[in-house]
């Protein structure tokens, strides 16, 4: 369906300018987490253009993006690298190619499940679900902070929800059916 | 509409920016559809709707007018006159039954060869969707009318034999 990985990335909104990259590294230099990456943003672009799909999607580096959009704002060639990171993450998620990381899988799916269930987010339930999915001992870690939040009145005791939850579920399902593109 | 409909597009380009821009597309070896036929004018301000209507009369499916970007006119502000005319010409064309996709007025500078190619590409695509321009030559019943006329002539001819002039 796609000529190569570059072609695939370019087919998504935000991915279209990837061929314009001149490998200047402004993205990496601007990135608050690139210091912890094996493949820096600039290198990821190189890898994409070298058709190394698996290497890229397997890498946990793409999950280190903090969505701060500094690379996007500064890119001298107008490449929306934050959007490309999102595209990479969705592909890795869809094709289940990412290296195993319980924390990431559990947190992201807990969040997504909550939206599907209630339409809105609440931190208490999210943390609870996340901890149960990973390691219930985590609850002890979150415990002190959670208590403080409760005491300060900053934890929702009754989970919020919306009236037309069916509609939200329906649009989410329809979106999923359409390949998530 | 036919499967392999290839629209004919007339491009009227100003000499200094857009024609040079189209030249640049050439010198840069950019490929774009061969549907456009370019006619050069010195300034887009030279373009009058007569030229556009003539194109449709001659079987064009679309007309593209292009000049220098406002502020960059070789003749100071000829393109300002172009931009004054465009909205009224577009409305006139729409009113007389020419779809808006068929007339485009754009700005292409001498350095925008790539943009020129893209514009042509887009226009060809848009016009392919709406199909060929139907000339306003009237309805298919022309032939019927003609037949009626012929038959009345026959009636007249038969009548002549025994008739006389009146009035």
């Amino acid at each position, binding site marked *: 369906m796609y000529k190569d990985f570059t072609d695939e990335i370019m087919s998504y909104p935000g991915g279209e300018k990837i061929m314009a990259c001149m490998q200047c590294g402004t993205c990496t230099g601007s990135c608050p987490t690139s210091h912890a990456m094996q493949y820096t943003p600039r290198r990821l672009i190189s890898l994409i253009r070298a058709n190394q799909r698996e290497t890229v999607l397997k890498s946990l580096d793409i999950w280190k993006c903090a969505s701060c959009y500094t690379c996007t704002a500064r890119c001298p060639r107008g490449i929306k690298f934050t959007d490309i990171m999102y595209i990479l993450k969705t592909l890795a998620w869809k094709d289940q190619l990412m290296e195993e990381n319980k924390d990431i899988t559990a947190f992201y799916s807990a969040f997504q499940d909550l939206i599907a269930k209630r339409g809105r987010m609440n931190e208490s339930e999210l943390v609870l679900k996340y901890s149960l999915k990973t390691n219930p001992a985590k609850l002890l870690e979150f415990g002190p902070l959670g208590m403080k939040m409760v005491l300060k009145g900053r934890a929702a005791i009754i989970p919020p929800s919306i009236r037309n939850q069916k509609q939200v579920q329906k649009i989410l399902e329809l979106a999923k059916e359409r390949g*998530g593109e | 509409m036919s499967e392999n409909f290839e629209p004919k597009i007339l491009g009227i380009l100003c000499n200094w920016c857009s024609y040079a821009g189209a030249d640049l597309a050439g010198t840069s070896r950019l490929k774009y559809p061969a549907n456009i036929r370019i006619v050069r004018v010195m300034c887009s301000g030279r373009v009058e709707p007569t030229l556009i209507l003539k194109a449709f009369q001659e079987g064009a499916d679309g007309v593209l007018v292009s000049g220098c970007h406002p502020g960059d006119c070789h003749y100071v502000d000829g393109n300002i006159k172009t931009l004054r005319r465009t909205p009224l010409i577009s409305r006139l064309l729409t009113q007389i039954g020419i779809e808006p996709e068929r007339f485009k007025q754009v700005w292409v500078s001498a350095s925008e060869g790539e943009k020129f190619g893209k514009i042509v590409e887009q226009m060809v695509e848009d016009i392919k969707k709406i199909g060929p321009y139907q000339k306003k030559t009237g309805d298919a019943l022309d032939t019927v009318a003609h037949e009626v006329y012929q038959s009345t002539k026959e009636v007249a001819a038969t009548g002549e034999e025994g008739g006389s002039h009146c009035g």
Partner: protein
Amino acid sequence: MIYQYYPGCSLHASARDYDESVQGVVKSLAMELKEVPDWNCCGATITPSLNQLQSQILPARNLALAAENRGDVVVPCNACYMSLKKIQYNMAKYKVVREKVTEIFGQAGLRLTGMPKVRHLLEVILEDVGLEKIKQMVKKPLKDLKVVNYSGCQLVRPLGFDNPEDPQALDNLMSALGAEVLPFSQKTHCCGGSLITTQPDLAFQMVDSILEESRAVGADMVVVTCPMCQLNLDAYQDQVNRKFNRTLQVPITYFTQLMGLALGLNKNQLGLQRGIISPFKALEKIG
């Protein structure tokens, strides 16, 4: 002026203080906020990481609901603000997004009847009320209060209303309220909000560099415009300080809380008591 209010999930939970101060301030400014009926979560940074189309459809539903009513959509949360603006941008720019969203909407009984303007609360206050008027309304100037202003990322990038590298809006507002605005290079550096749960090591470092500079320049508090930033810098501050051996605590306040104070509202009315790091000591300066 009537506006449509999209509070976002946090303001009904962990950022109740923000919501309280927003309500207080808008009342003083004679702005009317009406909540977008039955709004849903915008998907934040999670949904776009998992499913491209879902991440378009979620905020799009909010726009469709908002389009039924009149008034600009006012968003107090940076992340929600960006999500909503981004879907607008994508729908305008990409035909495929437009078509898929409308197609799905068609099947779910939704219709996008217009494109309401999406604006951050700070943007609305500065543009529609204006600094001049705010200056006149100040009852209790924030004199002697030294603040650093932290706009965060998504207020200014990629579709924000202020300079993405050196935003001015918050500085101007705080100066107008009488506070002393200290130079701060971390204004738009990321706090790591989206990574704090899953990759705390990365995020803690980011939180620390923001807090560290605020302490270095001598700020009494960090002013924020986003519940995510506030939570990160406030609730995790003790953990971060422990990790990097810092001793000083810096309170993190919402711009609306300080604005409320300056406009003469009561401290507790503004949720100031809800800060994990209490701002009260720092606020003694202004009495």
